[in-house]
């Protein structure tokens, strides 16, 4: 498939072109997924690193697309959203497999149970983040960029023209909201006894 230059798409999207924005998103999504898949093939069972994935995608953009990027923030935004989407899609497909029953994996070490639970939690985070965005768009964006996009608080502060302290406190609040919404005290944190004892 002949691809429109991603830089150009991003620049057009920056100017308000919604279809360019969609196309850019699709390209970044596919790129990230390919990078992740290749990484997993090279190194089965490896833990993916969000920051590394996104930066590799960005490096690829920088290497292959000659034109100047008007806004790095825009790429960040799309990359973070694409990562989020990849995870959500993976979770949905996993749960669909599970409901379908027939073709599902099995395992003895509980890995698949964990994956099933993680898939459900991921969808909860996704929904909770949508709800947070209705009240506090900036905090939701910080979560998306930091958690899904792997960007540092410094990077986010710089791109959004905020103080790093503000970003950090947005993150702290959003993180607390998500943790509570997930009922993490019961489920996800089950392995972290220290936190439970203090609660």
């Amino acid at each position, binding site marked *: 498939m002949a691809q429109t230059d991603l830089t150009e798409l991003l620049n057009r999207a920056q100017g308000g072109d919604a279809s360019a924005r969609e196309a850019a998103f699709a390209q970044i999504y*596919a790129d990230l997924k390919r990078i992740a898949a290749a990484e997993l093939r090279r190194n089965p069972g490896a833990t993916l*690193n969000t920051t590394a994935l996104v930066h590799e995608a960005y490096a690829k953009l920088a290497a292959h697309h000659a034109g100047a990027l008007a806004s790095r923030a825009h790429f960040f935004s799309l990359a973070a959203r694409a990562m989020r989407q990849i995870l959500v899609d993976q979770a949905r497909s996993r749960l669909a497999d599970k409901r379908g029953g027939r073709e599902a994996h099995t*395992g003895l070490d509980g890995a698949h149970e964990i994956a099933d639970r993680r898939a459900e939690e991921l969808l909860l985070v996704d929904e909770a983040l949508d709800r947070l965005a209705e009240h506090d768009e900036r905090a939701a964006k910080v979560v998306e960029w930091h958690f899904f996009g792997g960007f540092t608080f410094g990077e986010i502060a710089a791109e959004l023209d905020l103080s790093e302290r503000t970003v950090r406190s947005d993150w702290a609040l959003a993180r607390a909201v998500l943790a509570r919404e997930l009922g993490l005290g019961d489920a996800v*944190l089950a392995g972290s006894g220290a936190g439970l004892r203090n609660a």
Partner: protein
Amino acid sequence: MHRDWPQVKALFDACLDAAPAARARLLGDDTTVPPAVRAEVEALLAAHAQPAPLDGGAAAWGAPLFAAGIDDVDDPPERIGPYRLVRELGRGGMGVVWLARRDEQGFEQRVALKRVRGGLDGAEARARFRRERGILARLAHDRIARLLDGGVDADGRPWFALEYVEGEPIDRWCDARALPLRARVRLFLDVLDGVAWAHRNLVVHRDLKPANVLVDGDGRVKLLDFGIAKLLEDDDASATATGMLLMTPTYAAPEQVRGEAVSTATDVYALGVLLFELATGLLPYRTPSSTRQAFAQAVLEQEAERPARALQRAGVDAPALAAARGTTPAGLRAALDADFAQILSIALAKAPEQRHASVDALAADLRAWLERRPLLSRPTPRWRRLAQFVRRHRVGFAASTLLLATALAGIGATLWQARIATRNAQTAQAVREFTTGLFAAVDPDQARGRDVSLREVLDLGARRAETGLADQPAVRGALLSDLGAIYTSLGDDARSVVLLEQARDALLARPDRDDDELARAWLRLAEAQFEDGRYDAATTSADAALRLLAAHAPTDPLRIEGELRRVRIDEETDHLDAAGERVERVVAALRADARATPASLSDALATLGNLRRLQARGEEALAAHEEALALARRVDPDDPIVASRLHELAAAEAAVAQPQQAIAHLREAHVLHRRVHGERHPLTLSTEGELAFALANSAQYDESDALFERNIAARRAVFGTDHVEVATPLSNHGVSLYTRHRYAEAARSFGEAWRIWRTAYGPEHSSTRSALTGYGASLFESGDAATAEPLLRQAYEMSRRLDPPRNQESATNTLALLLERTQRLDEAERLLRANVALQAEANHGDVRVYPWTTTLLGRVLRERGDLAGAREQLERCFIAFDTDDYPDGPRTATCLVQLALVREAQHEAATQVRPLLERALTTQEAKLGRDDAETVATRALLARLPLAR
């Protein structure tokens, strides 16, 4: 999310970095901050304080989702190998399947091309992949979709090209056509055909499931992915990991779940699941949740449900499932009959070797079922299910449960033999219905969470056997005989006798009489009558059995059993000489016959040893028991029978007053039981209780008390608080406590044992009687003579009715004690004299066996002023106490004190008196304590001794 978000956010922000005191100030109270806002912020601060998994980034958090790789197939390659991809057919755990085409020399080949998720690492794995692929490619059969091609693509992912089948998974195909059960089974036979062929070519499918069994528009079955699972194994070491990753748990056999070796039996199991699903639309296990873990657990631990019962699970739409099979729920349940259930239960057996030996055997059974012929496979060993059930619920089941399970195993065999013998479909059906109904009650599902005791099942079975099977006297007789034997081992002799008499009558009524079966029933009846104390009847029964067995070789095991039973009856009725002649004959015959088993000889020698013990021929008893033990050890040193032999030897040693050897052998038996059966096994607990009692008799009270307490607690936990198994150590501990004058504790122990036995066996039973004796005696010693006397008189009368002479000793002595202490010395003397005479006869004058009776008589005579008579008795028991191996106990002390008093009264020198009293005092201080009344009295006697001179 909270309405006052800005306020929540601001307050949270402010609190975040604040010290606790400042934080409390910020959060304020209801007047400064709205309660809802404050609660929200507090909750968020609490959540904040916890480590959240979100901190590591989304990809790390989501890592489990990527464990099996990630699909990056949004833009599939145009070609894989020589194939052009046409369209996606499906995707799943294993990867993606496309319809693909290859144009070759003018004709177009359509294939199903499957690309597998995840890679094949290493040259060796790839070589192995190619090798396996070659084997599979040669697997050409109508019913098997051929593997045409395969390779590894540029990304290192393996792919296969399979014969493209335009079909539907077999379950959906059947449902769409509302195919009835029998038609489904016929179609399933085609599946078996293909699998059997592959097995003959040494290829196991490993992943049979509906998605891999397609049926095309013409109703032709095609099996997909034969051996693919194996193909994808990297190497043997990682077979489990890879295999299981790709394996569908629903159809995985227990050995696959455990990661053990896979064989053709693994496919038989998966076929069983598939057949179950085709037949019912359901899976064979009822799992509490749909998680894989739960299913894997079920595969390992649960017995497959009966198909007809599965339809009655909660939430199952039985009408829809039945409609898809062209029938009603009732019709479907009826079609899923006992034979069908049996076929499934064999195919789905947990152990591979218990399944059908081959796919052909499974097919043969299904054909037999279709044609309503008797099945070829062995009937489902229901008792094995029962045994497994018992294993799962071991705690909470009685000791007798194990006996029961063992005996039920015997029933299974009886029914099986009956089936073989008759080869009669009607009999087979009767037997099947009987067993199914009998064990249905054990089924946890049907019990609906109620704790069904095996005793209930047994009672149900016995009632059914009594009332049913009228047209099947042979089966009925054999069954009643087995059931009767179980009741004997449970100690319910009365019930056992009733059943065994019916068994005997049913077997006698048969025109084609089976003499062995009849003789066995007679022998079991003899045993039950014997245990019930009906020795004359037992003699008649045993003789009837022996007449039937007269033609058998003298060493025939059944005949030996009969002879030894007869010996025990003679022993119990004090025909010791006759018993001796008989058992000597049996031992001689066994020694002369080279084919006789060491086990039989061991049994006979143990019986001989027991007789010699009763004959007070102690050395011979020891020799016989030692040889019996050695033989049993030679057969199998770990067999529980060795522990029984150790027990018997210990009893013989105790009888010749070698308590330390007896204790040593009981310890050894205890160790053996613990090693073979574990700490809480009924046999372990039984030996432990005996050891505690032996230690108590040897005045080793500290160890004995600890062991008793442990034993009683363990028995309560294992059997339940009110079980008869708890009563025995309670009663024995009561004896030990009573001996040490700890009367209140003794009364509690005896009272509890009395209550348990009275409830279980009724008032008129020797065990109930013995606890009653102890209870009455303890009450009396506690000062309640008024309550105690009627109880002790009752116990005394009962003992005379129920017990053999040797066991009448204690009830008589306790009543005599009461009489003595309430100054009715005439009656006390009369009772004690009679008791000494009885014991002397029963024990052939060996006073070492009944020194306490002698002591008491001596004391009463002294109190009556008959010093000479008293001295005769007391010197005798002094010698007895002094020449046995037992260390001095409180009763020895009593004897010593009484003898000292008599000697003193007869003006013997202080040197003849003082040592006795000193020795008694030492013992009393050690065993009873310095402040015990008897200790104090002895000390006082010693103190005034010089003055008395």
